[in-house]
């Protein structure tokens, strides 16, 4: 380590890139894309450098960078990375060049690209922040570029979808801000010093049981909206369907992970006891999400909307794994976050390509594409099977770990959730069958094959899908110590009151 | 000292003033009602000053009289402006803006 502030650079670089893009004259849109790609690839390289330098086998935060920001309030620019956030950072850094290269804005390329880069800075900030204030700032900042991306470059219902997205998420974060402040001031009341530092607040747990419950609720509602967990999910199909292709890729691939990551980093870490007590509720909601998402997805006529609902189901699995509160479950949850980012991101990109070729997303209008575009169909098949959770591909690893983890601690939830796996196979395969099988007619006869450039963009993601499915060990090894520490912490805090249940979690 | 009577008188005058402002349509009468309110307060101030054997109340009343004069000056100027434009000083006519 050369003392180079890798994490700060990860956030600052895209922000500078956005400024650069704004500075490029309007008449030269072709440079914009080059600059944006260069910047986002540089970020990816940095993230990979972090992955390479990351010390496997340690649980604590690494690459920590800390500078005082607002002294009197105990707010600092505090960044760090551990096994939980590492892969989400890499995923984010990977998906942005993927989304930028894979789709083009139809107008005003400059503003579009600038917003994308701001969004990247914000997302990375959320994953890296170890200061509650900093976290909240990034959390809110993410809303603005996403709002503009959906509202400015989306499809017909874009303005409505953008507004719904913004209002929903902002309601959640409004509550979270009150929660953060309450947490900080209760802590200040007990210890006499004001600090927003996550580690300090988690270490010096200075709130009673019922207070903790309220605080957890304030955080949880915000995260639950972002994930989204079942009753709060209604913004998601609209936002996903109306967003431009790159927006959908990032929304599904990265933004939804902010919520699940929030649960791990802030829910479980700050409120271990409450997380344990409320786990049944969240597990139930997770399972309901899995089943509900699958059923609703099955009846969709719009391909993009179908994938959006499949996200609800997949995110249900992640919640299930997280609140199983076992090492396997949480690990499965994290790896499932990465998987969902890869496979759903790629699916949205493919649907975007279909839309560009055919100008429709209606399943009924498509059909027989396999005949005219076999390579395209093959790629779609592979990504879809990854989403279904076919053994040998990455989706299987995640779902398997989640189910095992849940089965250890909460048997019945795991059993019900397992039916979701079958349902996923049903609706995705059925959709595939309707779109790609059969005899092509009319417009579908002229469906162009996958281009080389598109293939080149998709190739790294496809490679990762296979690699993670065959050999997930390097990933699991790196996240295991952090996850185990977190789970043990939850067990210890909860175990003092309910030893019998907590022991069920150990194996 | 008979403080309560003065306070009562002031309160009644003030209320008449409030009624005038709320109920009258004629701008000049509204101005007069505002004057009435201010002078009701002056009665209060002077009465309290006398009750407390304290000169501040009377001094305050003088300030209020001065300011009230300035205020009415501006008020009448505005009324004149409106009258020039519309040949009416009914306040209800001034209702272009709604929402």
């Amino acid at each position, binding site marked *: 380590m050369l003392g180079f502030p890798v994490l700060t650079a990860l956030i600052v670089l895209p922000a500078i890139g956005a400024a650069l893009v704004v500075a490029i004259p309007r008449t030269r849109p072709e440079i914009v894309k080059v600059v944006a790609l260069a910047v986002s690839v540089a970020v990816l390289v940095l993230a990979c450098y972090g992955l390479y330098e990351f010390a496997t086998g340690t649980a604590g935060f690494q690459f920590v960078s800390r500078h005082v920001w*607002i*002294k009197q*309030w105990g707010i600092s620019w505090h960044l760090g990375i551990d096994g939980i956030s590492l892969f989400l950072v890499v995923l984010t850094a990977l998906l942005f060049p993927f989304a930028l290269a894979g789709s083009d804005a139809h107008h005003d390329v400059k503003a579009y690209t600038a917003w994308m880069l701001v969004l990247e800075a914000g997302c990375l900030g959320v994953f890296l922040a170890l200061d509650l204030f900093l976290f909240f700032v*990034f959390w809110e*900042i993410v809303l*603005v570029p996403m709002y*503009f991306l959906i*509202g400015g470059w989306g499809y017909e219902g874009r*303005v409505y979808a*953008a*507004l719904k997205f913004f*209002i929903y998420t*902002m*309601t959640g974060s*409004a*509550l979270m*801000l*009150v929660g953060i*402040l309450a947490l*900080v*001031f209760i802590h*200040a009341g007990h210890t006499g010093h004001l600090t927003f530092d996550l580690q300090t607040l988690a270490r010096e747990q200075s709130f009673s049981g019922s207070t903790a419950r309220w605080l957890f609720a304030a955080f949880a509602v915000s995260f639950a909206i972002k994930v989204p967990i079942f009753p709060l999910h209604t913004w998601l199909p609209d936002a996903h369907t109306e967003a431009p292709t790159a927006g959908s890729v990032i929304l599904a691939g990265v933004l939804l992970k902010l919520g699940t990551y929030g649960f791990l980093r802030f829910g479980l870490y700050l409120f271990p006891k409450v997380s344990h007590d409320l786990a049944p509720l969240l597990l139930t909601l997770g399972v309901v999400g899995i089943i509900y998402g699958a059923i609703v997805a099955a009846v969709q006529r719009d391909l993009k909307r179908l994938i959006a609902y499949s996200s609800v189901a997949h995110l249900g699995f992640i919640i299930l794994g997280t609140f199983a509160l076992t090492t396997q479950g949480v690990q499965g949850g994290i790896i499932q976050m990465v998987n969902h980012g890869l496979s759903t991101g790629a699916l949205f990109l493919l649907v975007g390509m279909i839309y560009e070729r055919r100008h429709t997303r209606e399943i009924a209008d498509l059909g027989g594409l396999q005949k005219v575009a076999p390579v395209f169909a093959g790629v779609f098949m592979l990504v879809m099977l990854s989403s279904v959770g076919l053994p040998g591909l990455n989706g299987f690893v995640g779902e398997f770990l989640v189910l095992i983890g849940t089965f250890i601690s909460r048997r019945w939830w795991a059993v019900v959730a397992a039916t979701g796996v079958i349902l996923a196979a049903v609706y995705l395969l059925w959709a595939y069958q309707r779109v790609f099988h059969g005899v092509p007619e009319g417009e579908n006869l002229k469906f162009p094959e996958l281009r080389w450039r598109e293939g080149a963009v998709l190739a790294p993601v496809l490679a990762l899908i296979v690699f993670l499915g065959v050999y997930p060990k390097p990933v699991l090894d790196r996240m295991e110590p952090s996850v185990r520490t977190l789970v043990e912490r939850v067990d210890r805090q909860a175990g003092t009151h309910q030893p019998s249940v907590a022991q069920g979690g150990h194996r | 000292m008979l403080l309560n009577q003065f*306070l009562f008188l002031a309160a009644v005058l*003030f209320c008449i*003033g409030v009624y005038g*402002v709320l109920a009258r349509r004629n*701008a000049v009468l509204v101005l007069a009602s505002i004057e009435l*309110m*201010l002078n*009701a*307060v002056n009665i*209060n*101030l002077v*009465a*309290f000053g006398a*009750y*407390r054997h*304290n000169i*501040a109340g009377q*001094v*305050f009343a003088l*300030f*209020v009289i001065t*300011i009230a004069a*300035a*205020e009415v000056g*501006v*008020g009448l*100027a*505005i*009324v004149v*402006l*409106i009258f020039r*434009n519309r040949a009416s000083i009914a*306040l209800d006519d*001034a*209702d*272009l*803006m709604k*929402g």
Partner: protein
Amino acid sequence: MIAAVAQVQPGQPLQLPHVDWVTIGPAGIFFVGGLAMLLAGVFLRRRVPRGLWSGTTVVIAVLALWPAFHLWHQIASGGARTAIADAVVVDGFSIFIDVVIISAVVMAALLTDGYLRRENLEGTEFYVLMLFSASGGMLMASANDLIVVFLGLEILSIALYTLAGFQQRREGSQEAAIKYFVLGAFSSAFFLYGIALVYGSTGSTNLGVIADFLRTNSLTNGLLLGGFALLIVGLGFKVAAVPFHMWTPDVYQGSPTPATAFMAAVAKAAGFAALLRLFVSTFNTYRLDWQPIVWALAVLSLLVGSVLAVVQTDVKRMLAYSSIAHAGYVLVGFQTASNRGVAGALFYLFAYAFMIVGSFAVVTLVSGRGDTDASLDAFRGLSSRRPALAFVFTIFLLAQTGVPLTSGFLAKFYVISAAVEAHSYALAIIAMIAAVIAAFFYLRLIVVMYMAAPAAEGEEAAPTARIPIAVGAGMSLTIAVGFTLVVGFLPASVFDFARHATLLKL
């Protein structure tokens, strides 16, 4: 002044108090500067270089910063004090409000220049009235005597009534003037009644004496509480808190837009300065009596302001309702009656002054000659006509929404944290919900500017006329945007300023 006069026995020569001029320096410079400009304007009626008067106003305002800094350092080394026979107080709080008002005057004066030229209203009067009005506001902030508070309030208000009606030939402006005048004078009378009752029950108009009296005597009659209520009514009108807000939309909409900008920033700052000093400092011992009232006002302002703003179609009117909601946030800080609450309220007023003057500056430019059209349609497609203007307006709107990395977010953060610290959780949550409702209409405006679909059949096409941006307005916008963003990124120094701007302990 009054205390000294009150001790005079008949027959004795009058002892005039020592006047420490520098303590009323900022207000004094504004007042004298205004008078000088008024005279100069009479003699230099014609043929003055462009921008002379607005430039002079800016110079006067910046000059007033000098005594303010001087006093700030004095307070930092020697502590807060009262002066001129205890009639005024010199503390960090008053200096802070002075700085807020000075900033607002600088921006409004720069904005006014191009506006007056566009409307053919050139002359000194607008600036002079602005300076007088601002001096009244400063006097309110440093008043330590109810008489001085009242004087300051009237100086502020009377000049504002005239500013509201400055566009003599436009009916909207006249209407705004008469409405503002009638309701303003009406509320002044309530305020005065409140003063009389407080004076009657405590025997003094001096805030220090009143505070002492209240600390040593516990009053149980309704006189004092009635006084509190009437004072809140009177000042509630000035700061546009619900239910005393009825005048706000009409007056904001009808007044010349630069006057609206000035009014929104300065009248609110001055009104809250008086409220905070009177209640948090002087009536502190009775805070359990007045806190519930302020709590209710805060909730009503937040919700009514935000909800009614959503249904507006005129941008000026919408900003008026949003300013009511902003008053609600300041009330949230006020309600806590704590140091953090006061500092939060101050920071909010400071940040708000820049946001609102900036917003109205954009409206001034867009609404065109005669302030004719500030409807949502006038803003349609602004991003393609004037991308920079649309972008700047977007920053102000996002700041008002409370998006991080703008001063608006930190302002909300500050007052909400004060509320949380004071365990007013319900209020904090209501305030955040109001912020979400408010986001709805700020975003609607952004949508209109950026995402407007081509006009459907039967609809009016988006306006295409070029929008000229005067130099002064450009400078004003630059200052406002600069402050909003820089403080949004690096708030530490302004946080410190607000934190040290404490009220003199009485």
